[in-house]
């Protein structure tokens, strides 16, 4: 089984900790001049998203996690699973609600997402940073209010609700930053 020594630790490295796949966020080398060296790492559990601190004696080895990040195309959701396809080899993977998490509200068929596979199965899904989605429901636009000013909630075709300027109409397509959930611009059809 593959393993990593603490001197290979760097941010982004995927390791197994207590049977769970984790990603190293930060690695700090702590050593007294004439004493034992340690690596203090900040780790994210890739299944739960929880962040924790862990300390290793320098030189110790830790099991590598079979985790790969792949770009996959979102196909469809069947109510229980969200189905993705690797556009290079047409292999499909089904992610459950846990793995999809908050990404579900941005997923539109054909869009390319980063899917994290652990032992071949999806454990997390990251939507594209920017998505262009149609507004399926919002209050009617207010005449004469095209300048800066207020916002109103708008429901997008994927179910997400974002704040848009008052002049945006139902049926229009808008560009949204999925990391912040913020409206960026109107997209001309």
């Amino acid at each position, binding site marked *: 089984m593959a393993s990593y020594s603490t001197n290979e630790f760097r941010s982004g490295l995927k390791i197994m900790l207590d049977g769970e796949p984790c990603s190293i966020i930060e690695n700090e080398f702590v050593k007294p001049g004439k004493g034992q060296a*340690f690596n203090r790492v900040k780790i994210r559990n890739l299944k739960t998203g929880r962040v924790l601190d862990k300390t290793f004696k320098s030189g110790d080895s830790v099991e590598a996690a079979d985790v790969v990040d792949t770009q996959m195309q979102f196909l469809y959701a069947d109510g229980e699973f969200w189905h993705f396809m690797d556009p290079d080899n047409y292999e499909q993977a089904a992610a459950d609600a846990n793995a999809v998490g908050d990404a579900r509200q941005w997923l539109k068929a054909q869009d390319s997402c980063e899917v994290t596979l652990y032992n071949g199965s999806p454990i997390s899904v990251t939507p594209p940073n920017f998505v262009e989605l149609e507004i399926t429901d919002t209050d009617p636009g207010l005449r004469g209010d095209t300048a800066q000013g207020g916002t109103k909630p708008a429901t997008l075709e994927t179910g997400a609700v974002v704040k848009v300027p008052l002049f945006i109409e139902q049926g229009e397509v808008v560009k949204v930053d999925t990391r912040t959930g913020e409206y960026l611009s109107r997209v001309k059809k």
Partner: protein
Amino acid sequence: MTWQPSASPRVLHERARIYRQIREFFDARGCLEVDTPLLMPTTNPDLQVGSVGVPVGGRTHYLQTSPEFAMKRLLAAVGESIFQICHSFRSGEVGRLHALEFSLLEWYRVGYDYRQLMLEIELLITTLSLKRCEFGRISYHELFSQHLGIDIDAIELGELRRLCAVRVDADTSRLGHDACLDLLLGMVIAPQMQGYQFVYDYPIAQAALARPRAGDARVAERFELFHDGIELANGFSELTDAAEQRTRFERDNRARVLAGLAEYPLDEDLLAALEAGLPDCAGAALGLDRLLMVLLDIDSIDAVLTFAADD
């Protein structure tokens, strides 16, 4: 733009200033500036101090982890106080506070003990800081009692490991007594330390090249200086007993073998020098890169190194 220095012009000038003042300081106090080789056929066998080996004519020589051994040979020959500013190397040490190649000020004061040397360091740092500095002092034993409420001489290894596991999330089942103390000092106590603080009278098991304290063989006449929990300097009343030094080297080599590492040839030149007679003295090493970090309030060693190594 990797060809450019990692240190800013401000850092380069500050380094030049403190080097100039260090030389003036020691010159005024009658210390001789010396220059010893960085590459030598033997090295420190201490398991916790990694050397960088370099092939030289079919043999391995070592970039020195500090100029200590050569300077002690010199001391035995000239018998007067000496100082040196040089680079040193520690293999495997890379991080926010660590660089494989770093700068040291190392000096030996004939006739001093570690307490007098602590006073001299206070004076040196105050001089280099261009302002009044406060220095705290606490014994290693008292430090653990104050911060963790434990008596490090009395505590059982099992209890110490449990304490480590509670205070630091780590697998401590294979850590020895001293590794547990290193862990607690580095992860729990140091982050709470403020300002300049000397920690003195280290446990004898962590004596390195310090002599046992007169009247209390449980501790060594060794100190370290911290600033906001960052280790800046280490000093001893120097061990002058050649037989005891040989015993410590052999013990270090046995620890290397147990850890699956090759033994190092003993530095017989150093042992012969101790045999011939090292004057009673105290010596210290001060990390100049870390001192620059403190003086300039910079939090990464890479920003004070002229050219930081690429990862």
